């Protein structure tokens, strides 16, 4: 069986020999295996890092559209002024220095049968394994009246970068006593606690600069993650400044009126000085173009390995994948990257593939010295990724200040360590 396979049998079985024929410079056996990674966000960058860490003999090509990556985690602190965006901006030089072939180009097509990836720049890359971690796109089509044009007047800032800075400017320009609306979209979406953390970080800014201002959250759903912790912290830090309207109480967006700059819900027309419209989401365009998505708009995978159930040999990780109980987070993307890497490395080296380890940790910082967290441990069960009962869980409600402060400090260290893992 697999465990007894040696490398040559494995390479032969994958048909690598014929692919290598197209690469005159490549001698068979020069690389133990060729892995191409699409997308250099948390999932893709960490996959590249761990491939080189655990098996330097594997040839790794990382294809990322942008020269710089801006971390969404902690980008809400840019809004409060707690940090600048430079502290969240990373490049790919460390990957190149470790021997990863970093290609800045956009992937335009994937040929699963020929095991080849094509780019806008006209290049093509052959692979033995393809790891796809392209993140999300916005899905404006599901709400009447909504369209990408509305980003001109209603920012999402849900891919950290230019829009984060624009939203910050809008907050600065707003009058004291103004109102901000944040919409929380239909699940699944990237970073489930994100909208509520954002409300807190905006309130942190208002508290010091425009104390009469308010944040209104219009929610598609009826619950929020870490609900008791958010509600407790809002009451303690920002009394009266944040209002949350669940979907069934009129929070759900039924229609967008771009001309009037208003959102229509069961409560009527909602207007505000600033509307931060976080749109519904789906897997990034390349996943759809490559036929990796199903009707849900996301990429179904085999929970044992993260291999696409639609195209063999392609591993979809991170936000783009259907991961059931696992939320769409950077930490979860990292853990999925490691599952795939450890499997590829094991097979390449003729060792047994380890039991997949899926974990998530999500720290939230709602203000200075005030943090809390959720942990999840997951395993494949009945074809799905399911939370392990009795493991994981939330920070306690009613915890003393020592705990909140410590968790805020650990949260920053988490950011430092996971971005080091990904980019440094």
């Amino acid at each position, binding site marked *: 069986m697999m465990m007894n396979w040696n490398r040559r049998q494995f390479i032969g079985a994958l048909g690598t020999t014929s692919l290598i024929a197209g690469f005159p410079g490549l001698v068979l056996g020069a690389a133990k295996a060729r892995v191409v990674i699409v997308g250099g966000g948390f999932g893709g960058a960490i996959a590249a890092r761990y491939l080189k860490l655990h098996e330097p003999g594997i040839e790794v090509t990382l294809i990322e559209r942008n020269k710089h990556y801006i971390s969404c985690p902690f980008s809400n602190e840019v809004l409060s002024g707690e940090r600048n965006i430079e502290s969240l901006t990373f490049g790919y030089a460390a990957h190149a220095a470790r021997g990863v072939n970093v290609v800045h180009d956009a992937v335009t097509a994937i040929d699963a049968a020929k095991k080849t990836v094509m780019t806008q720049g006209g290049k093509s890359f052959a692979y033995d394994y393809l790891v796809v971690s392209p993140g999300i796109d916005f899905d404006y089509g599901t709400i009447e009246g909504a369209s990408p044009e509305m980003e001109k007047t209603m920012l999402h800032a849900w891919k950290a970068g230019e829009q984060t800075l624009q939203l910050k400017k809008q907050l600065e320009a707003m009058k004291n006593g103004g109102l901000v609306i944040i919409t929380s979209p239909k699940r699944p979406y990237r970073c489930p606690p994100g909208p509520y953390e954002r409300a807190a970080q905006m309130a942190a800014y208002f508290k010091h600069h425009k104390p009469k201002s308010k944040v209104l959250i219009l929610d598609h759903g009826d619950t929020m993650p870490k609900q008791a912790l958010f509600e407790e912290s809002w009451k303690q830090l920002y009394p009266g400044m944040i209002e949350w309207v669940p979907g069934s109480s009129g929070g759900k967006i039924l229609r967008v009126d771009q001309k009037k700059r208003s959102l229509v819900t069961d409560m009527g027309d909602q207007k505000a000085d600033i509307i931060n419209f976080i749109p519904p989401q789906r897997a990034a365009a390349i996943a759809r173009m490559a036929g990796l998505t199903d009707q849900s708009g996301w990429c179904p995978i085999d929970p044992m390995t993260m291999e696409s159930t639609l195209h063999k040999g392609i591993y979809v990780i991170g936000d783009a994948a259907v991961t059931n109980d696992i939320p769409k987070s950077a930490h979860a993307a*990292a853990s999925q990257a*490691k599952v795939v890497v450890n499997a590829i490395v094991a097979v390449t080296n003729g060792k047994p593939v380890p039991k997949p380890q899926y974990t998530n940790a999500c720290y939230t910082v709602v203000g200075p010295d005030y943090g809390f967290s959720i942990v999840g441990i997951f395993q494949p069960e009945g074809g799905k990724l399911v939370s392990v009962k009795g493991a994981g869980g939330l920070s306690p409600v009613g915890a003393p200040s020592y705990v909140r402060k410590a968790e805020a400090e*650990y949260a920053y260290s988490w950011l430092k360590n996971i971005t080091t893992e990904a980019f440094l």
Partner: protein
Amino acid sequence: MHKLALAVVCALAAWPSLANDTNIVAIADTCNSCHGINGVSAGLTMPSIAGQNKDYLQRVLLEQKKGERYTTIMDRFMKNISDEEIAALAEYFAAKEWVPATVAVEMAQANRGRQVLRKTCQNCHGEKGDKNTGDIPRLAGQWPGYIKLEIFKYVDPTFTAKRPSERMAERACNLTEEDMAAVAHFLGTRK
């Protein structure tokens, strides 16, 4: 089913072969997003765990798992990890090289910290804070931010949980905040 999927099934059938290091590496990899690659932390308040002695690591992880030791988050991670895996993880991280934190020396702080260490800590932690056997973890080269959070557990009145060590409690409880900061700084600058 693709080959990786098949291989996983085989591995599960062969479970539990705990000496099998690929499984331990896979678990250890999940620690790194918080503790740093190979347990070497780059975060100013997260402990490096690479190179701490095996007995200490194993005891701490077991105590966290059983809820016998206060932690903000580790108990929630350890619940699904078996005692055998914990032993293997302790061995895995203990065998990694200790990489000291990078902390710029501030002379006045460091001198004061050195004195605190001599007077109050070195009996147990060694002259340089680098004793690393049995129930004593290495402090020399650990992140000052983490050392401070740990000693705060002994002095902060809002910290009401059980303290990690009664032995430590006797000494650390009387430290002033300045002394704590100084000794943490001094220890952090050691290699």
